[in-house]
């Protein structure tokens, strides 16, 4: 059974002529222990979606069940208790400016009714976990963006939640800080066995730590699946657009006036295939000359990932054989002829 199950979720803001349908019937399942990413442009409805999980936003139709309980049917008190099993972090951190880092982390513990001694030891533990024990007495205005988000994470974890919701948690941070926050989320996810839902507009965040991804556009999920698959075989135009933000697009190269002499091939590989000498192999086996126009090696979570743009020059029948051979190799996700 999935830990989070969303069915037919709809949300409309405003009414009459000015009404905006933020969610148009979203179905999603998030399994226990996975890091699930939701990517989309601003206004796609992804933030509304995550806020419907802990009912910061009440859906107009559809159900959200967490661990088998329908969240929309809970009473005020039950909802408050259920929310304590879900931590949430935000783009703008949302720390209390009148409290120190330690004071912010103790807030959810006080709300849950923990006694003072227990609060003190737990706060220390949590600040240690996020690497901020030396900043316990600092006010948010004295902390950097990354440090503020670490406080946010410690605060979200205070009541031992099963789920961590991240609403654009790294969007206000610079690339280095983003990387360190993502590493921290990934690390605590593994250590605590958390289920994480990440909302972002950055594909980099998805490829860095997510197991599965849903792509949203205009209030609907347009594509969903394991990250490696969605990333290497994007079907929807919006998904392609996101993939191209990480992987430089070949369209720019063609637009700049490059005229291929042979067949223009896009090859994407994962796993061990990334390390195999395919360009040398095709040259030797088929007598064709692969000209490398673009090459990119990265990783999706822990899996190596490679992308090549080749201008395969030679006799047409040999080029044909070579591309068929490439397509059949294990670990090759995609061989696409572009001309």
């Amino acid at each position, binding site marked *: 059974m999935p830990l989070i199950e969303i069915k037919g979720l709809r949300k409309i803001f405003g009414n009459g002529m000015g009404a905006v349908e933020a969610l148009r019937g979203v179905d999603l399942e998030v399994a226990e222990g996975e890091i699930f990413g939701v990517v989309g442009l601003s206004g796609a409805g992804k933030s509304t979606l995550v806020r419907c999980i*802990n009912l*910061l936003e009440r859906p107009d139709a559809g159900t959200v069940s967490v661990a088998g309980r329908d969240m929309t049917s809970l009473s005020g008190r039950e*909802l*408050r*208790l*259920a*929310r*304590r099993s*879900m*931590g*949430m972090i*935000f783009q*703008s951190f*949302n*720390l*209390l*400016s*009148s*409290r120190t880092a330690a004071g912010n982390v103790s*807030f*959810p513990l*006080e*709300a*849950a009714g923990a006694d003072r001694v227990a609060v003190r030891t737990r706060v220390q533990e949590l600040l240690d976990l996020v690497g901020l024990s030396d900043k316990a007495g600092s*006010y*948010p*205005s004295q902390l950097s963006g990354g440090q503020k988000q670490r406080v946010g994470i410690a*605060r*979200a974890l*205070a*009541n031992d939640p099963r789920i961590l*919701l991240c609403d654009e948690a790294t969007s206000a941070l610079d690339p280095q800080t983003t990387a360190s926050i993502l590493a921290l989320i990934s690390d605590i996810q593994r250590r605590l066995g958390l289920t994480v839902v990440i909302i972002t507009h950055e594909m980099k965040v998805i490829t860095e730590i997510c197991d599965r991804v849903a792509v949203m556009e205009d209030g609907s999920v347009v594509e969903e699946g394991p990250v490696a698959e969605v990333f290497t075989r994007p079907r929807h135009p919006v998904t392609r657009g996101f993939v191209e933000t990480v992987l430089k697009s070949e369209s720019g190269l063609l637009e700049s006036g490059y005229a291929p002499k042979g067949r223009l091939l896009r090859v994407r590989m994962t796993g061990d295939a990334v390390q195999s000498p395919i360009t040398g192999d095709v040259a030797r086996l088929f007598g064709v000359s692969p000209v490398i126009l673009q090459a990119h090696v990265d990783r999706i979570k822990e899996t190596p990932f490679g992308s090549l743009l080749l201008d395969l020059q030679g006799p047409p029948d040999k080029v044909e054989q070579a591309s068929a051979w490439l397509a059949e190799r294990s670990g090759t996700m995609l061989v696409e002829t572009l001309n």
Partner: protein
Amino acid sequence: MLLTVQQLLMLKKASLETLYMVSVTTAFTVLAGVPLGVLLVVVRPGHILENRWVYRIVGLIVNATRSVPFPIFIVFVIPLTRLIVGTSIGSTAVIVPLTLAAFVLMARLTETCLLEVPHGIIEAAQSMGASSWRIITRVLLPEALPGLLMAVTIAIVTLISYSAMAGMVGGGGLGDLAIRYGYHRYQTDIMWATVLILVLVVQLVQHVGDKLVLRFSRR
């Protein structure tokens, strides 16, 4: 400019009357105005205890109260003053209209301060399962504390100015002294002295207020 002993005694008495009226009224104003301001905020559309009718009705009463000029207000609430204090004249009687006029101002000032608290912080508290009462007492009020201190300072200065009209119903105080002696009896020196005292007191109040705001500002 030299004042006679008699004049100095009058100044002292008037100062104490003003101090009495303003301090008692300030206490009532804060005790009643801050909760009313909190109410005005939390029942707003989209806030934690959204209630359209309460918001409209309370807003209407506050606006109506604030519409009446203070001298007219003093006369208007005389029946209520008699009911509470037993008389409608004297320093104590003036406390009733002063409080009524100032606590709605305090409520509006409180409302403005609380609306400055970023909505995201309130949502974060909700996401942690905090109750509405906890959000009010542990999030809204502490976060708005510097602004609230500034609002109290404004309320005190306004009360000092309002209390000058207490003379209308025999409430005494510095303003009354200035009008009766300084204006009606042409004793300009008395007027100068009261103005000087008022200026100094307002400066002092503002200075202490600013210091406190600075002390509690963390943004």
